C-alpha cells in the first residue's frame, strides 16, 4: 500500500517526463480543475491514511470495545445465560459479593501463585537459552526452530500429554521421582503439586517463544561492546550480566508485561489438566484460576452478570499491575539516565 501512495504522489506532482504523446500538457485546462484537483489531493493525503487504518478500528470497535463496555454493563445486572434478554438491575452488588466470596480469593491467590511459578522460571530459562543460542554454535538454525516447536503445539494436545506424565499412579514423572525415594506425589489433588504441574505446561509452552524475542534483542547489541569487555578481561558471565542484560532491558520488561497478562488470563491449561473437575479447578478449587471461576459462574451456574463482574475485576487488576510496572520502568529509566 505504501508504495502505491508514493507512486501516486510522484505521478501527480512531477511534470510528465515520458509518454507525451497521449497526455497533452495541462496549462490549457480550465482554472476550476486545479482547485478541484488540489482539494482532492489534500483529501487523499489527509483522509486516505484514516481509510487504511479504518478496518482495524472498525473491527476493534465491534469486537473489542463494544464487548468490553457491554460486559461492564452486564456486570451491574443479574443475567441468566439462558435468557440474556432479560436483565435485572443489581448496581455494584455483583462486585461486593465477590469481595466476600472465599472462592474468588482462592482463585485470585491461585492465579498469582501459578503466575509467579510459571513466569519467573520461564523468563529466566528463556534468557539463558537466548544467550546460548546467541553464540556461534553448530546447528544454530535447527535449535532456534526447535525451541519454538512447543509454542506451535496446541494447548489441548500438550496438556493431554502432560496429564499422562503427571498421573499420580502410573505417570512417568512419579516413576522417575520414585527412583530418588520420593513416592506418591498427588499431582492432581494437592495444591502445590497441581499448581507446579500446570506451571510446567505453561513454562514448556512459552519459554522458546520468549527466548526468540530475547535472541532478537541480543543480536541488536553492538559487538564492539563485547570485544571491549573481553579486552578488559571480563568473563562470559560478566559480559552477560553487565552488557547483555542491561542492553535488552526494555525487551525484558516487554516480556514481563506480556507474560503477566498471559498468566492473569490462564484458562486452557488448568481446565484441560483438571479434566472432569477442571472447571472448578479440582475438588478443593486448588488450581482454579480467575478465568476458570469466571467460566464456572457464567456457564455451569448461568450467572452471566457475576461472571462479567469477575471479567471486569480481572481487567482492573491488569491495569493496576500495568501501572505498577510502568512506575517501576520509569524509575528504572530515571536511574539509568542519572
Amino acid at each position: 500500500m505504501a508504495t502505491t501512495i508514493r507512486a501516486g504522489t510522484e505521478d501527480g506532482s512531477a511534470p510528465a517526463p515520458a509518454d507525451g504523446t497521449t497526455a497533452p500538457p495541462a496549462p490549457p485546462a480550465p482554472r476550476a480543475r486545479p482547485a478541484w484537483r488540489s482539494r482532492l489531493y489534500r483529501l487523499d493525503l489527509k483522509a486516505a491514511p484514516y481509510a487504511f487504518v479504518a478496518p482495524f478500528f472498525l473491527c476493534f470497535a465491534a469486537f473489542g470495545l463494544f464487548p468490553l463496555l457491554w460486559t461492564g454493563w452486564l456486570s451491574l445486572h443479574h443475567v441468566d445465560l439462558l435468557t440474556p434478554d432479560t436483565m435485572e438491575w443489581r448496581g455494584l452488588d455483583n462486585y461486593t459479593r465477590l469481595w466476600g466470596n472465599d472462592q474468588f480469593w482462592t482463585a485470585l491467590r491461585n492465579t498469582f501463585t501459578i503466575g509467579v511459578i510459571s513466569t519467573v522460571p520461564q523468563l529466566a530459562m528463556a534468557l539463558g537459552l537466548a544467550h546460548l543460542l546467541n553464540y556461534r554454535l553448530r546447528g544454530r538454525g535447527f535449535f532456534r526452530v526447535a525451541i519454538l516447536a512447543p509454542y506451535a503445539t496446541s494447548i489441548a494436545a500438550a496438556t493431554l500429554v502432560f496429564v499422562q506424565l503427571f498421573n499420580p499412579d502410573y505417570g512417568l514423572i512419579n516413576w522417575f521421582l520414585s527412583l530418588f525415594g520420593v513416592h506418591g506425589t498427588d499431582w492432581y489433588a494437592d495444591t502445590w503439586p497441581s499448581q507446579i504441574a500446570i506451571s510446567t505446561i505453561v513454562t514448556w509452552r512459552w519459554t522458546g517463544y520468549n527466548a526468540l524475542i530475547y535472541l532478537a534483542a541480543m543480536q541488536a547489541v553492538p559487538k564492539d561492546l563485547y570485544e571491549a569487555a573481553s579486552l578488559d578481561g571480563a568473563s562470559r558471565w560478566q559480559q552477560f550480566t553487565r552488557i547483555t542484560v542491561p542492553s535488552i532491558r526494555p525487551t525484558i520488561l516487554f516480556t514481563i508485561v506480556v507474560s503477566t497478562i498471559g498468566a492473569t488470563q490462564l484458562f486452557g491449561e488448568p481446565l484441560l489438566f483438571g479434566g472432569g473437575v477442571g472447571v472448578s479447578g479440582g475438588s478443593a478449587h486448588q488450581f482454579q484460576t480467575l478465568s476458570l471461576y469466571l467460566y464456572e459462574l457464567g456457564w455451569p451456574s448461568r450467572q452471566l452478570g457475576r461472571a462479567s463482574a469477575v471479567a471486569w475485576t480481572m481487567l482492573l487488576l491488569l491495569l493496576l499491575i500495568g501501572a505498577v510496572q510502568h512506575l517501576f520502568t520509569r524509575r528504572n529509566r530515571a536511574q539509568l539516565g542519572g
Partner: protein
Amino acid sequence: MRPTSRPRRAGVLLTAALASSALLLTACGSGAKSGSDASPGGGEKITLTVGDFGTFGYKEAGLYDEYMAAHPNITIKYETAQDGQKYWDALTTHLASNSGLADIQAVEVGYIAQATGTLADKFTDLSKVDGVNSGNWLPWKSKQATTAKGALIGLGTDIGPMAICYRTDLFQQAGLPTDRAEVAKLWQGDWSRFVEAGKAYQAKAPAGTFFTDSASGLFNAALSAEAQQYSDASGKLVYKDSPGVKKAWDLAVSASQAKISAGLRQFQDPWNAAFANAKFATVVCPSWMTGIIGKYSGDSGKGKWDIAAPPVASNWGGAFLTVPKAGKHQKEAAALAAWLTAPEQQAKVFTKVGNLPSTVGGLQQPAVQAAKQDYFNGAPTGQIFAASAQAIQPSPIGEQDGNVKTIITDNGVLDIEEHGTDPAKAWANVVKLVDDKTGH
C-alpha cells in the same frame, strides 16, 4: 487522461479500503454458523446434523448409514462431544443465541428439567410426529421430557438401570463368592450392606486394590434409589433437608472413611487407567457403563468381569433427543429422531454398545431379552438390566439438579476422598457453594 487519474485513484483507494474493512468485518462475524444447509441444486437434498456426547451408539450400530440408504435425499452429519458437562454448557450458549445448533441435539437426563423449564420454548413439540406416542416409552421417561404445557420436547434414547459390575478374580482372592447370584446376596436390599461387603473385601484385599472405584459413584447410585433427591415435586431445590441426599452422603462418607474406595474421580484419566491395572473390584454399573468397562479394561479384563443385581434397583443417566426450533429442517429432523428412538433401533444400539432401550417395546425385543455379554463371563445383561428397569421408582427432578450433583460429588465427596476433609466441614462447604451457584 492524467488530470482524471488522481481523483479516480483516490476514489479507488477509498473504495478498496472500505470494501476491505467490510470484508474484514464479515470475516470476523461469520464464525458460528449453523451446520445445516440445503444444497442449492437438488431442492430436496438436505443435510441433517446431530449433536450428542459420550456414546449414543448410532454410528456404531450403523443407523445413520441405514437411514441415509432409505432416504437418499438426506445426508446425516454428526458431532460427538467427549464430556457431557462441557457439551451442555456449549449447548445452552447456542440455545440462548439461537445459533450454532444442530438439527437434533441430545440432552442428558440431569439437564432435561432445564430444557422443559426455562428453555421449553426453544424446542419443538414432538408429540405429533408420525410414530411418536408418549406411551411408547416407560411412563416416567416420557414424563421427564414433557413441559408444563404438555409438549413432549425430547424422545427418550436410553435409560441406565443399575447393576454392580465386579471382578471375579479379585473377589476370589479376597475370599468372597464369585457366582453372580451369591454375590448379589451379599448386598441385597440395602446400599449399606454394599459398604459392609466392601469392608469384608478390604480385610483380605489383594495388595493395592480397593473394593470400589469412587465414593462419589456410590453417592450417585445410592441417591438414585431414593424417592426424594435434590428437588421436590414442584421442582424446588430441597437437597439440604432431603432424606435421600442425607442417606447417600452418609453412605459415601462411610465408604471413604472405611478406605474401601480407590478415591478416583469417575471418567477421569486416572480412573480410566485404573481399569487396565485392576485397581478396584467393583463399579456401580448402569447399562451404559458396560461399554466403558470393556473399553478401558481391554483384553486383560475379558472374562474377569461379571455383573450382579444391585442392592436396590434404580436409574442412573440416560438421555433424550430434542429438535431445537432454530433448526432449518425441523420436520425431517423430528422424523429422524423418532426413527432413532424407535424400539427396533434402540435394540440395535443395545446389542452394539449396551445402552438399554427406554421404550417398552425396545425392552421386550428378543435381541434385548436374550442378550448375553461374553466380556462379562456371559452374563445375561439383557435380563439383569431389564429386570432392574421394571423396578425403578422415579423421583422428581428440578432445574438445578445437575449443578447440585456436580458440586456435591466433585467438591464435596471428592474433597473428602482426596484431602481427608472433615465431612461436616465438607458438607458446610457444599451448602455454601450451592447457595452461591444456584442463588440469584
